[in-house]
Structure formats: structure tokens, C-alpha cells
């Protein structure tokens, strides 16, 4: 199952857990499943039914352009990082 790294500012909701093994074939499913274990997580990561615009999801080292729809593998590593662009 995918491993989700929990950003430090969210760990207050995950009882200090730094990473979680969460079932899910997409980023959306992973967030929903985290939400059922740690209520409030979804609201922090999402703006309605979309990923919060200030957050990027990185899956296996690459920014997932499909965001919540990004597909995950059994061994995927998921990170929520600060969204940014360039000059």
C-alpha cells in the first residue's frame, strides 16, 4: 500500500505520526482514507473537492499534475509539498 508522508504541520492531526501506510489507488482515495482515520486532514489539504492550490502532491519523486486523480502504485511514496513555480 502507498506510504504517505505527513507534513510536520499536519502531524497534530495524525497523533504525531510522520508517515502512514494508507490504502488507495489515487491521491483522492488516500486522502479520504486518511480522513476516516484522522478527521480534519482532508479539510487541511483540500479546498472543497480540489487539492488546495498552495499544495503540490509529489508521487515517487515527481509532481503529480493530475493532483487528486494521480494514480498510485502499491509501493508509491506520496508527499504534500509547497506548490511553486519559477521565473
Amino acid at each position, binding site marked *: 500500500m502507498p506510504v504517505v*508522508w505527513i*507534513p*510536520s*504541520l*499536519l502531524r497534530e492531526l495524525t497523533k504525531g505520526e510522520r508517515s502512514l501506510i494508507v490504502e488507495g489507488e489515487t491521491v483522492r482515495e488516500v486522502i479520504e482514507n486518511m480522513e476516516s482515520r484522522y478527521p480534519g486532514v482532508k*479539510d*487541511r*489539504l483540500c*479546498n472543497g473537492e480540489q487539492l*488546495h*492550490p*498552495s*499544495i503540490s502532491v*509529489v508521487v*515517487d*519523486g*515527481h*509532481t*503529480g*499534475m493530475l493532483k487528486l486523480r494521480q494514480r498510485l502504485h502499491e509501493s508509491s*511514496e506520496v*508527499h504534500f*509539498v*509547497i*506548490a*511553486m*513555480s*519559477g*521565473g
Partner: protein
Amino acid sequence: MTTTLPVDEKKDDYSVIGKNPHRHDGTDKVTGRAQYGADIRLPGMMYGAMLRSPHAHAHILSIDTSDAESVPGVRAVVTAKDLPDVESKIAELGEGTINLRHQSNNILAKDKVLYFGHAIAAVAAVNPHIAEEAVALIKVEYEVLPPVLNVRKAMQADSAILHEDVRTDELGKKGDSPSNIAAHFQNQIGDVEKGFQDAHVIVEREFFTSMVHQGYIEPQNATAQYSPDGQITIWCSTQGSFGVREQVAKILDIPISKIRVIPMEIGGGFGGKNGIYLEPVVVLLSCKSGYRPVKMTMSRSEVLAATGPTSGSYIEVKMGADRNGRITAVQAMLAYEAGAYPGSFVGAGMGVIFAPYRIENALVDGYDVLVNKPHTAAYRAPGGTNAAFACETVIDELCEKLNMDPIEFRLLNGVKEGDRRVDGPVYNRIGYLETLEAAKNSQHYRTPLEGSNRGRGVASGFWFNYGGKSSASASVNSDGTISLLTGSVDIGGTRTSIAMQLAEGLGISAESIRPAVADTDSVGYTEGTYGSRTTFATGWAAYEVSNQLKEKMLERAAMIWETEVNKIQFVKGVFLYGDKQITFAQLASRLDETGGPVVASAAVRPEHSGPAFATHIVDVEVDPETGKVQILRYTAVQDAGKAIFPNYVESQLQGGVAQGVGWALNEEYLYDDQGRLVNSSWLDYRMPVALDLPMIDTIIVEVPNPGHPYGVRGVGEVPIVPPPAALANAIYGAVGVRMNTLPMSPARVVAELNKQKG
């Protein structure tokens, strides 16, 4: 002097890529024929001018435009009242995010001005002089408020507040009272306390930098024609025409289909021309003046005072290393000026600061801080240079304490494929160590530096690079050439670097491609020329187009020879079938007899942009009397993945170094205590001139990006990251003072030397 060091195991066999054709738009640009935004002249065109705030922070009590409106020759006056009320919603524009209400208020201030130069009202008149005279007749009543000008003071609870509705955001959690800290970010990994306990040496320092400007030579400009049927045409200088279309549509609350943006040639951007300032205003002026076209051009003072510079910052860095020089823990706090509205690049700075190093224990806090200065914009690797200045000078101090060579220290701690970034993700194939090896083996580094008051500095840098959305379409002409349309504005030779990737795929010459930058009605959606993405992503779209054209042309060849496609080979622009052959150009002349025109288009959004790393070496001589720093020699080493158009890759490195040198030694925004910008001209905001710089040597390392068909990595941004740190380290080597403030101007260097003397 350029050296290219391919690291690829298999030798590539390109016939176009890696060569240096003349750029397609070159002749137009050396003869003065190229049309930039301000060069446009339309029948009946009028000229706009803007009233700007003389105060850094004030409520607007009233605006009276009646005198201005009555000036003969004035056709329209607009204020924020003419803008629709947009919701306070976050809109996603390309890759960035933006609060629409904030952007609208930045374009024309509504009830509060938030920085010196904030736009308030605009006039359109039959000539620019009348427009300026009319602007001077607009009366504004202000209630002046105390300005917030210092990033650390702005963070204090007792500071005056810029926006009553801004609460500190901490990953989706909002603070409960108004604050100038718009956001707090954090990256944390491992156990910092334990890491510092394991350290043999620890260095902890603080750093200060001021706002600096991109300094593109062409001021912002925009021309609009509002047609009676509601269709709008905008000609402007922008890094991204589709971004302008989206932003104008949202600010004016009109559908994008009503707007056509024609990107003119652009005189530099460096991140500063992603956002918009004038476009909605000229649209409104054109509409209100009876559908006359209106052109508005900023003065240089307006550009400096009221477009987005990059953040000034306050940074604390603590790093520990063991006896062998391995980094055991790092900690940093970065506070970046966002300017008048939230949204600095502190997040990027947090990502850049320790990116070149393998670190198990790290804690990085970042703060996005509101101050009464212009809203910051991207500037080449935005947020990165400030951060690298801090980290890379602390590393130099660690090396000194450990008695280690700075390149050896970096080789020991440098990241490679499989290592983890401080913000979590793991690197794929990257070329940082290769830049260090190349720097170590360079002629420059192997030549000892002699002479008094001379020193050598080394620093490295990182930039994420971005992929993003790009489209391209092409048609085969009967003379064997290909007309290529892309939506990528060409700021530094990208017409050609894109065309070369199309040409390579078809085995034809770069000169056989006719590349053009199309407007928003004429090509698929394409993000702006930013994020070091254009040669990477739009080049990829051109590569996809080449594959499609190849397939289609193979079908035509099969038709001519009355055989199957799979029996034909295509080698270097020649179709082969048994002992028969036909060149691409010959086949192109026979399209009519084989079914008519051949066209292709592609849209891509590649994700694997491949980060960029750079290592710079600089030698300086410091005049201990005046504090002037003279650069004696400079070498920039960078992993380009694959240099498609090497002359222009090298030029990106050299240009990035030059901007970094300006930032390091001269450039800074100077505000008086009332928040008025006092150096808003190029006489006083001094950018490097030819006499300030030596030749800038480059070493291009090529560690192909596995995420691109030709191995491309973006090259444009990372070269600005190392220079200030490299220069600070060189100054220390020369005269023994550690500079912690940018710019390291003569006065500051002398002040440090005087402190040293005691």
C-alpha cells in the same frame, strides 16, 4: 570559453541538436525590425498614463477625476470603480495561485494603497503628454497610515496591519487574529536536536537581503482594442499570452473567448512578466473611450516602484557537521517579504536552501510576510538566491573550521539519485556531483590564485525546474520546410531550441523549420516562458509533432512506392525502400499526388522536468580602502541535461551570473522611513555594466534527464542561485570578513573591515 562535458554512456549521434545555427529571429533583432510591445501603432491609437500613490500605506477617502476628464484631448478616465467586484477566491493560473481580489486591488487600488507607486487611476488621451498632464489633475484624499517596511518588525504582534482579513495560514489552518504573516510553512525530517548533539562543529548565522528587481530593459506595456461587439484584442509584452488571457478574463469577469492576446517580442522578463499590471486598465480605457485602441507604457520609475521585484529577506541558518565533515543536522528560518499582498517565494527558498546536500535531520520554517512594498513577483529561481546565499556561506565557514576544501566538502555531502530532499521527495537522476567534479578539475580551480587582497569562492545552487503545459502545431510546406507554431514567447532563442528538436526528429536542418510564436486564438494552450520550461516542454511538444509528421510522411512514401509503411526506413531525413530513396523535401513536393496537406499538432504536460544543479567558482580582488570588489575570473558549471542549443545555454549561464553579481554587489531597493522608494532610476539602482564584469567561463555538464526524449533539463534559472554566496566566500578569502548582508556594496565591505580592525 565554453567546455561541454557529456556524461552520457552512449555517445549521441545528433545532426541538429548540440549545434549552433543562427536563431530564426536573429536578423529581425539585429536590424531593429523585431516588433516589441511598445512598437505597435494602430489607427486612432490613444495613450494611457497612470496616477500612482505617493504614500506607502493609506486609506483612500475620495478620488475626484472631474478636472482630468475636462482636459481637451482626454477620452477616458478609469479607477477601481470600473473594475467588477471579484470574489476573494484563489484562482489557479497556470502553475501559480493568486487571490483575485488582491490582484484586482493591485491593478487599481480600491480603498487602500499599500505601497509607494500603487496604481490608483488611469487616463487615456490623444498623446502621452496630455495623458500625463491630466493624471496630475486627479485629486485623491488620503488618510495616511504608518508604513510597515521591515520584515521582522512586520511579524511582531504590535505591527500595523496591511490587511485586516489576512490570518496566518499553516497548511490549511488559519490563525485567529489579523497578521502580516500570511503563511507559515515547515519542512521537517529526522531529529534535529540529536543531529546537533552529534556535530563536532556548528555554525549559526543570520542573513539580510533587500528587494531587487529583475531589471528587464523593456518596461511593461500593453495595448488594447475593445470592439463594439465585445471582442478584445491585447498586444503586450508578456512571458505567457495564455496567462494574460486568463488573468484579464478573471479580473474583468468576461469569458476568455472574448479575449485574444497577441504576444509581441519581449524585452526580457526573468519572472517579472508572468503577472499583469496594465492589461485590464487599457481594456477598460479602450472601452470607455469609444472603442479607440489605447497603448500604455510604464516609465522606468514605474517599473521599479510598482511591478514585482523579488523578496527581501531575513534568514537564520544553523548547520552542524561531524569530524569527517558529514552534515549531521541543519536548521533554518526564512522570512520573505511578500510585499503588499500574500504570496512570496519563501516556499521555493525553503526547498532550495539545503537541496544540494544529503541531510538526515532538518527543520526549516518559512514565513510569507506582508510589508508596504510592491507585491513581489518571480525572479529567476525565485526565492532561491537569498536561501543559497545563507546556506552556502555557512558551509564555507564549516569548511574553514574543518579545514576542508569546499568542493571536497560538497562532494562528501552532495546529493545523488536516490537521496532524499529535506521536504521529503527522493531525487531521480541528477548531476550535482558531476558539476562538482567538473569544477574541481577545471583549469580555473587548478590554477592557484596569487596576490594580496584576493580570494576565491565556491558555491552551489539548485533549482526545481518545471514542466507544464505546451502545445505545438506544424504543417509541411511543398518546398520541404515546416511551418511551426507554438505558444511559447521567445525571450532568449527558444524559437530555435524548439525548432531544433522538431528538425532532429525529421533529419532536416534547423533552417528548414519556420518557427513562429502564435497568439491565443492560433495555437493550443501553452504556459508561459518561465520555470526553465520552454526548451524542455515546448521542445517536447515539437518532438511529438516530429513523430507524427514522420508517420504521416512514411504513409505518403509508401503510397508513392506502392508498398507497406513497415517496409520503408527513415534515416536522417531520407526515406529508403530497397534501392529507392527519396528525401523529406522531395516527398514534401509530392503531397498533392498522395492525398494533400500534411499537418500535425501535439499537446504535452511532462512531469519529469529534472532538477538543475550548478557550482560556481569566482576570484575577486577587494580594495581594502574603498571596499570595491573586482571580479577577476568567473567559472559557472552547470548540468544542462542535454544542451540543445549550446550558445544559448551558455548565454543563460552567463546572464544568470551577471544578475547574481548585480544582486551580490550593487542592487537593492532603498526606501526612506515613510516607505518612498528613493532609487527608482537606473542611475541609482545600479545594474552591472560591461565594465563591471570579466568574461564568464562556462562548463556545461550533460547528465541527460531520463524524463525527456532528448535528455533536456531546464537551464535558465539555477545560474542566478550561487553567485552572491560564491562572491561572499571569495570576499572572505580576500580580506577575511564574513558578509551577511546583500548587497555587499563597497560601503558595507568597508564597514566590516573597520569592525575587523576594531
